[in-house]
């Protein structure tokens, strides 16, 4: 049992280590709590959770008081480190989950649209439980992750995107327009130009994305190919960045869940808590 607990701790720390790097990247990019301080313009969608966060004043205080924004940045880093040190501390996990969820809502409200990287706080959900509950929460989250990507394949199939041979080449120019406007061109913009001049090749890349998402369905039948699915999704996001300029930072720790081997370690939880 102790061996299982040790193995789980290593896995938890890998996930939390990646989350730490992701949040550090967000801070470095200048879009942490303090980076967004003073950003008075926001646009919310119809989403009761995002409304709740705004009604609670969670985002308003960070927008108007720089010290609150800085404190939130610091607190987030400290809490991730603290959870890294003791991944079984559920109190820290709950506070961190709420803080990261608030940050995600804050960030996406300033973007004006909701980005897909909700994994930055969803990954903390199982850490709020102990023992067998934690194991089952990780398993449930794994299904949620698989469903998230598999549903994208489903929509491509039923909404007809797969069969429109001009779809992917049609989207590329708008994805890269700021780069051309600012004369900031390079190998990725050259690749984009090649693809919009060759719509069939572009659509083949789109089919590759569809297949990667569809392969997540296998995860509902067996867990034996989880790592393969995990690598495929990482490759998918890399291709997404190269071809569409859509980054994956914020979602990587979440995908790491597929590299997990969930084993119960009730005894160690009792021993630690």
């Amino acid at each position, binding site marked *: 049992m102790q061996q299982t607990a040790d193995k789980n701790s290593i896995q938890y720390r890998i996930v939390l280590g990646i989350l730490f790097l992701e949040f550090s990247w967000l801070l470095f*990019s200048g879009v942490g709590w303090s980076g967004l301080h003073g950003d008075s*313009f926001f*646009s919310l969608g119809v989403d009761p959770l995002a409304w709740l966060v705004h009604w609670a004043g969670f985002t308003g205080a960070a927008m108007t008081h720089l010290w609150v924004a800085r404190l939130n940045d610091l607190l987030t880093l400290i809490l991730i480190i603290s959870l890294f040190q003791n991944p079984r501390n559920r109190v820290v996990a709950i506070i961190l989950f709420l803080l990261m969820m608030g940050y995600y809502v804050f*960030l996406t409200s300033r973007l004006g649209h909701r980005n897909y990287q909700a994994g930055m706080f969803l990954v903390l959900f199982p850490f709020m439980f102990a023992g067998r509950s934690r194991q089952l929460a990780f398993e449930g989250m794994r299904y949620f992750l698989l469903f998230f990507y598999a549903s994208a394949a489903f929509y491509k199939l039923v909404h007809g995107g797969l069969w429109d041979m001009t779809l992917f080449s049609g989207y590329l120019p708008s994805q890269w*327009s700021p780069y051309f406007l*600012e004369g*900031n061109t390079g190998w990725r913009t050259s690749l984009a130009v090649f693809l919009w001049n060759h719509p069939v090749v572009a659509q083949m890349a789109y089919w590759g994305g569809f297949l990667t998402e569809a392969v997540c369905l296998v995860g509902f039948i067996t867990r034996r190919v989880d790592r393969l699915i995990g690598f495929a999704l990482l490759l998918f996001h890399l291709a997404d960045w190269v071809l569409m300029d859509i*980054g994956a930072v914020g979602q990587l720790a979440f995908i790491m869940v597929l590299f997990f081997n969930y084993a119960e370690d009730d005894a160690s939880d009792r021993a630690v808590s």
Partner: protein
Amino acid sequence: MKKTYLSRLFAHSRLAGMAVVVFMAAYAFVSFKSLNFIFFPLNDMYSGRGPQEQVFQTYSILADGRRVSYSRFPYWKKDLMESSLKTYAEYLLNGKKTMLQDYFERKGYPEFFTRALCPDSLSVVNWPRWYIHMAGLPAPSDSIVIRQYSLSKSSRGLTVVDTKDILKENIND
């Protein structure tokens, strides 16, 4: 035979099992209604027919006549500066209303309900200054312009075919 996830969950905790069943039912309902919530994401981006237009719009802020560039920033900052500027431009073009403000007005929601969910019209006026500061540039002393660029596709890239100023602010006036 191996037990399913739900049966193991119910065996462990009936409450947790019920919570997951309710979650799945809610997700099915929300997806059926094509709604997109944080806990029920509708992952249907780029799934329908491709865009048919041949002209693509993008926006820039010009501070004292100089374009505020953002494409060289790290990914998240670049995304923030691109997306928020587009949303702000749409806000201006939509009579200074966000999509949600429009929705609330049409539905007749009371002001106390919507206040925290919509940007304050007075402080939003200064948003372009915040944006320029975010880009690491000094505060403009002469003018701020928000320009819409129309770009057309060619075999070698994108070229500007039209521009339209959607905000012009002379600071000294």
